[in-house]
C-alpha cells in the first residue's frame, strides 16, 4: 500500500448533546484533501449540529469521541483558531450584521487568517482586486460590497455571499451547510460553479444537504447518510441517486438491525484503496 498522508479530518465516535438531548450518537468520518463528501439525511438527523460543532459553536456538549484536524485535536480550539487554520463553515442561515460593511468584515477576516499563516496583511487596494475577481465567480452585484454584512440580502444573495467568503478565505476544509437550500435553479448553478471552482487536490469540501439536487452540479466522491445522529451508510455518488429514488425509509429499515452501519464502513474503506 502506498504511504498514506494524514487525513485532513478524522471524526471518531462523536457524541454530541444539547439541552440533555443526544443529537449525534457516534459519528465516524474521514475526509482527505482533494475529496468532496456529501452528508445527506432527513430533517433532525443531526447534519447541521455536526457542521456547527466542527466550526466551534458553543451551544453543544461533546460527551464522547474526538475530532482531529490535520492530525491535531480540533475540539479544544476556539472558532477563530479553527478558521485561521483553514476550516470554513458556510452557514445554513448566514447572520445579518447591520453596521459592518461586507468588505470591512471580509478584509478583517482575510487579514486575520493571513496573519496566522505568516503572510503580510493585504492593503485596501490589493484586497479589492482580489475580491473583485472572486465576486465575478459568484455573480455578486458589486454594490453589495459596501452594504452591511447580509443585512437586507435575499436568501440567494446570502448563500452567494457565503461562497464569496469561502473563495476569498481559501480554506483547506470547507463545510457547506445546506448552501443549496432555498435557491432557484439559476442561483443553484452559480453556487455550484463557485463550489466546483474551489475543488483542488489541496482542499476538501463537505456538502451537508437535504436534497440530491445540488449533487447533479457538484459531483461528490463520497456520499454518507446521517440518520438519528449516526452515519448509517456510505457510498459513492450513486447512493445519492438511490436516496432520491427510494427516500430514506429503506435505510432506516436496514439501520434498525444495526448491520448496515458496520457494512458501510467497510465499503468506504474499499472505495479508498
Amino acid at each position, binding site marked *: 500500500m502506498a504511504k498514506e498522508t494524514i487525513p485532513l479530518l478524522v471524526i471518531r465516535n462523536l457524541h454530541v448533546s444539547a439541552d440533555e438531548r443526544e443529537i449525534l450518537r457516534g459519528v465516524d468520518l474521514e475526509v482527505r484533501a482533494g475529496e468532496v463528501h456529501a452528508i445527506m439525511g432527513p430533517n433532525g438527523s443531526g447534519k447541521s449540529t455536526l457542521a456547527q460543532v466542527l*466550526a*466551534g*459553536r*458553543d451551544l453543544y456538549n461533546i460527551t464522547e469521541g474526538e475530532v482531529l484536524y490535520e492530525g491535531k485535536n480540533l475540539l479544544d480550539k*476556539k*472558532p*477563530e483558531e*479553527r*478558521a*485561521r487554520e483553514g476550516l*470554513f*463553515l458556510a*452557514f445554513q442561515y*448566514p*447572520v445579518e*450584521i*447591520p*453596521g*459592518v460593511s461586507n468588505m470591512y*468584515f*471580509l478584509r*478583517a*477576516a*482575510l487579514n*486575520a*487568517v493571513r496573519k*496566522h499563516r505568516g503572510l503580510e496583511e493585504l492593503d485596501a487596494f490589493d484586497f479589492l482586486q482580489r475580491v473583485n475577481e472572486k465576486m465575478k465567480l459568484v455573480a455578486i452585484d458589486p454594490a453589495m460590497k459596501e452594504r*452591511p454584512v447580509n443585512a437586507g440580502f435575499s436568501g440567494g444573495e446570502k448563500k452567494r455571499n457565503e461562497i464569496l*467568503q469561502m473563495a476569498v*478565505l481559501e480554506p483547506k476544509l470547507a463545510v457547506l451547510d445546506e448552501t443549496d437550500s432555498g435557491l432557484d435553479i439559476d442561483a443553484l448553478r452559480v453556487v455550484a460553479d463557485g463550489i466546483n471552482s474551489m475543488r483542488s487536490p489541496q482542499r476538501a469540501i463537505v456538502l451537508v444537504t437535504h436534497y440530491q439536487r445540488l449533487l447533479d452540479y457538484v459531483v461528490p466522491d463520497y456520499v454518507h447518510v446521517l440518520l438519528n445522529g449516526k452515519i448509517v451508510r456510505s457510498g459513492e455518488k450513486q447512493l445519492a441517486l438511490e436516496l432520491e429514488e427510494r427516500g430514506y425509509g429503506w435505510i432506516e429499515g436496514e439501520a434498525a438491525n444495526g448491520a448496515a452501519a458496520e457494512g458501510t464502513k467497510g465499503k468506504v474503506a474499499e472505495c479508498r484503496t
Partner: protein
Amino acid sequence: MPDVMEQQDLYLSGFREQKERLARQEPAWLHRMRQEAIERFAELGFPTTHQEEWKYTNVAPLAKIPFQLSAPEEACSRCSRLSESARAPGMDSPGIRLVFYNGCYCADLSSLSDLPSSVRAGSLAESVQGRSSLLEAHLARYADYRSHPFIALNTAFWRDGAFIRIPSGVVLQHPIHLVYISAAAEVPVVSFPRTLILAERDSQLTVMESYLGLPGGVCFSNAVSEIVLGENAVVDHYKLALENEQSYHLDTLQVYQDRSSNFKSCSLALGGSLVRNEVNVVLDAEGCDCTLNGLYIAMDHQLVDNRTMVDHARPHGTSRQLYHGILGDSGTGVFNGRIVVRPNAQKTDAVQRNRNLLLSEDAVIDTKPQLEIFANDVRCTHGATIGQLDPESLFYLCSRGIGLEEARQLLIDAFAGAILERIRPAPMRSRVEETLHAMLWQGRHAEEAL
C-alpha cells in the same frame, strides 16, 4: 458635610452678592428675569428622586458640592493658558468657532473670520448691551425657568454664552462650533453656559455645541440652549458632552419650530460622571419636521440621563427619534422619551426608538417611553430594546477568523455607528468617531491592564 439646604443657600447668597453689580451693568428686563428665576429656584429647590422627572437621577451629591461661582475676570486670565492644542475635538479645525472658558467668552480662541457679515454670532453678554429688544423678545421665553430648577439657576446666573442670528434667506455654508470648556483645580467650579439661536425664515444653519472638560478638578456645567426656527428654517444641531470623569453636566435644549421648519439634533453623551440631556421641542405650526438622534455611553460609574419631549401642537408634524445607549462596567443609562400629540395635531407622524447595549452584569438602563395622544388621526410608534451582544453574530465573525475581542469591538462600533453615520459634516463625524474609539477601546485597555 454641608447638606443640600445649605448649598441651596450658597446659590442664593451668591446671587445676592452679585445682584447690585448686575443691576448696574444689565438692562432692567434682564435683571427682573434673573430676580424672578432665583426666586423660583429658592421655591423649587434641588430636585429629589421622589419627583418622577428625577426618579433615576440623584443630584444630591451634586447639590452638596460647594461650587465656586467663578468670576469672569479670573476666568479670562486663565484661558490664556489654554493652548490651541487642548484636547477639544474641533478646536484645531478651521471654520466659525466661539470658545467659552468656564462660561466666559474667549475672543482669543474664537474664530469668526468665515462669518458672513449678515450673520450675527458672538458673545451673548455683549449682545445684551447692544440689541436688547431682540433679546428681550426671545431670551428665556422658551426654556421654562419657572418650573425647572436647573433652568432657573442658569437663568439667574449665566454670565455669557453664544448668540447667533441667521437672517431670513441666509444659508450658512460652514458649521458654527460653540465650545464650552470647563476647568477646575482644587476648588470645584460651576458654569452656566447659555445659548440663543434665532434661525429666521428660510435660513439654514449647522451648529455644534461641545461641552468639554479639562482633566483635573470637579466641574459642573449647567447649560441652557434655546433655538428658534422661523418658517422653512433648517437647523442641524449637534451636541457633544465630553466632561471629565469627575464632573457634572446638566443641559436643556429648548427648540421652538415655526411652520414647515426642519430641526435635526444629534446628541452625543460620551463623558462626565453625571450627564443629563433634556431636549424639548415644540412643533408649533403645521408641517414641522423634527429628528432627534442620540448616542450615550456610560462606563465606570457614569450616569447618563436623556429626556426628550416632542410636543406636536399643530397638524401634519413629523418627528423621528433614535437613541442608542452603550452601558458597561457599573454605568447607568436613562432614556425617557415623551411624545405629546395635542387635540389639534391631526396627521401627526411620530416615531421613537431606543436601543440599548449592556456590556456588563452591573450596567443598568431605565428606558421609558411616554406617549400622550389627544388627536385621533395620527401615527405614533415607539419601541425600546435592551440586549447584550448577539452571540450568533459573534460566532459568525469568529468563524471567519476574527478574534473574539475584535468581533466584540466590531459589533459595538456598528451599534454606535448607526447614530454616528447621521452626523453629516464629515470632519465632525470622524473626530467624534476617533474620540469614541479612544474612549471605548483605549480606556478599556487601560482598565484591563490594572
